[in-house]
């Protein structure tokens, strides 16, 4: 047992627990209203939103998995960098429109918007179900991050005792999310990000220096790992995979419920726009962390007998924790691991709130109790946030970790299928609601088949004539989805299939607070 690391870890964990409960009193308001519990009253300014979105997008799992991918696969793992740099101009242009229309009409979820825009409860339900399905495994993956660092501090026993720290951590998280709603992760994300930045800066300066500097580290990486394999005759290989992985991820990310929740909780369009210029600070941290994958290769952590058992259990995801154990003093390992664990709690809280919002607004209120008051909604959402977390915990405890990773991968391919409905819907409702529903179904089926047929790899070798174009399954399937939606819209218009009323007007998409 690594006692000094564990002590520091527990102190920091205790601190954020206190913050989580204190958050209920922050900017005090009636938390028995879904707008307050589930969206923090839509009052977060530039700085809080920066921390909240940063804590939401750059999860603990990201910080472990991206270097792990670079560690194992080399240059292709760096796709996270073009992904995050393309993300912000895209969100800057598109998503203030969602904020505006949601603010104007009191929408809490993307499905609320779809319901109002297309007048179609069914389409709204499809979007809600997709969101919940995609979010559940994502929460489970956050737990994997916590599990890895807890194990690395010496809790390696099997059975209930081995799982106890994870259960305790999650029970605490569930309790303060229940009490404080979105205010809890918003406040905790400030601590989380400070810890993450301290850890990242320490890791990228201290560790490479002990290994002869970055020049030496890059020189020691085999050439075939350092660059993407160049395309061969009629096969675009790693080039198309890299570009479509980045592009598909950009298109998918802000369709996730937890991203939309954080976005809608901001106080104005300006807050979102300013953040799109300020959030790339996290991308820089992520790029530097990706380098740690190579640092781990050169440090030979994989061959170190001290870590052999961990690598066996957690695979390449142990690369970064191993580096920290090897090069940091024990007390600082506590800081770094607390950063990872708290970095998992923030998104897990937001994700469970987002899933609860979706269920409450688009299933409970729509189908189970149309007369629900805002207080009923808040009560159901609070309970649901508990159910969602217990579900994710049970998943991690009883199902092999690979399944969570597989499902999260499928989740990305599923959530992007709501792109034509949500994003195109922000500009035009030309696409017919039934056409969108059929396109969605086709996209869901196709993306699932693509991912499963490749044994749960995210890239699919598309064959066009004599060309082979390996690319992100989510990206290919959403194109098919979109084409079907366009063709069917033309057909439905031709046979004059009924249209529904649009609750929104063009000015709503530019609406801002004074």
């Amino acid at each position: 047992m690594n006692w000094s690391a564990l002590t520091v870890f527990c102190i920091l964990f205790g601190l954020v627990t206190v913050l989580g409960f204190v958050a209920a009193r922050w900017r005090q308001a009636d938390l028995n209203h879904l707008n307050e519990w589930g969206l923090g009253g839509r009052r977060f300014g530039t700085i809080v939103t920066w921390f909240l979105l940063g804590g939401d997008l750059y999860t603990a799992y990201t910080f472990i998995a991206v270097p792990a991918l670079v560690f194992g696969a080399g240059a292709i793992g760096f796709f996270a960098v073009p992904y995050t740099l393309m993300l912000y101009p895209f969100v800057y242009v598109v998503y203030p429109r969602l904020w505006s229309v949601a603010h104007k009409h009191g929408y809490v979820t993307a499905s609320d918007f779809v319901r109002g825009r297309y007048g179609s409860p069914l389409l709204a339900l499809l979007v809600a179900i997709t969101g919940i399905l995609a979010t559940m495994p994502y929460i489970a993956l956050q737990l994997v991050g916590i599990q890895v660092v807890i194990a690395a501090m010496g809790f390696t026993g099997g059975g209930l005792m081995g799982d106890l720290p994870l259960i305790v951590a999650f029970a605490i998280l569930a309790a303060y999310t229940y009490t404080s709603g979105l205010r809890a992760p918003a406040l905790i994300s400030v601590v989380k990000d400070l810890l993450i930045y301290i850890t990242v800066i320490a890791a990228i300066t201290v560790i490479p220096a002990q290994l002869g500097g970055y020049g030496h580290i890059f020189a020691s990486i085999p050439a075939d790992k350092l660059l993407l394999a160049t395309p061969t005759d009629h096969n675009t290989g790693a080039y198309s995979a890299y570009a479509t992985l980045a592009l598909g991820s950009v298109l998918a990310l802000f369709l996730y419920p937890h991203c939309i929740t954080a976005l809608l909780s901001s106080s104005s369009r300006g807050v979102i726009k300013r953040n799109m210029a300020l959030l790339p600070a996290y991308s820089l941290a992520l790029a530097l962390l990706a380098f740690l994958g190579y640092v781990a290769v050169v440090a030979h952590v994989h061959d170190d007998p001290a870590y052999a058992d961990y690598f066996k259990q957690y695979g390449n995801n142990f690369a970064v924790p191993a580096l920290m154990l090897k090069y940091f003093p024990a007390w600082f390992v506590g800081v770094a691991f607390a950063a990872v664990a708290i970095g998992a709690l923030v998104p897990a809280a937001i994700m469970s709130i987002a899933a609860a919002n979706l269920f409450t607004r688009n299933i409970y209120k729509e189908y189970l109790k149309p007369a629900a008051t805002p207080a009923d909604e808040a009560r159901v959402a609070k309970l649901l946030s508990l159910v969602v977390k217990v579900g994710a915990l049970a998943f991690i405890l009883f199902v092999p970790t690979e399944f969570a990773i597989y499902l999260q991968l499928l989740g990305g391919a599923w959530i992007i299928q709501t792109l034509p409905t949500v994003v195109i819907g922000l500009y035009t409702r030309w696409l017919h609601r039934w056409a969108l529903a059929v396109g969605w179904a086709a996209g869901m089926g196709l993306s699932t088949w693509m991912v499963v047929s490749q044994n749960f790899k995210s890239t699919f070798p598309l064959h066009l004539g004599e060309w082979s174009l390996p690319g992100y399954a989510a990206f290919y399937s959403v194109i098919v989805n979109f084409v079907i939606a366009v063709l069917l819209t033309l057909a439905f218009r031709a046979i004059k299939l009924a249209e529904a009323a649009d609750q929104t007007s063009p000015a709503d998409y530019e609406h801002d607070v004074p």
Partner: protein
Amino acid sequence: MAAPGPSKLKRTVWYVILFIPFFVAIWVPLFNRIEPSFYGIPFFYWFQFALILVAAAVTGAAYKAKI
């Protein structure tokens, strides 16, 4: 309340500028090379790292221009 936004032409020009880093980032052959390296860091890595700064600067400039 809709703010009296910038002219349509100005918006279009800015949208094009905003998406330049976008196209550079997916044009892989442009940067999939070792040289010119920067203090031993291959072009592939430092170029994309620098592109984060460019994209952020462009987004910030668009905000300043009230797009």
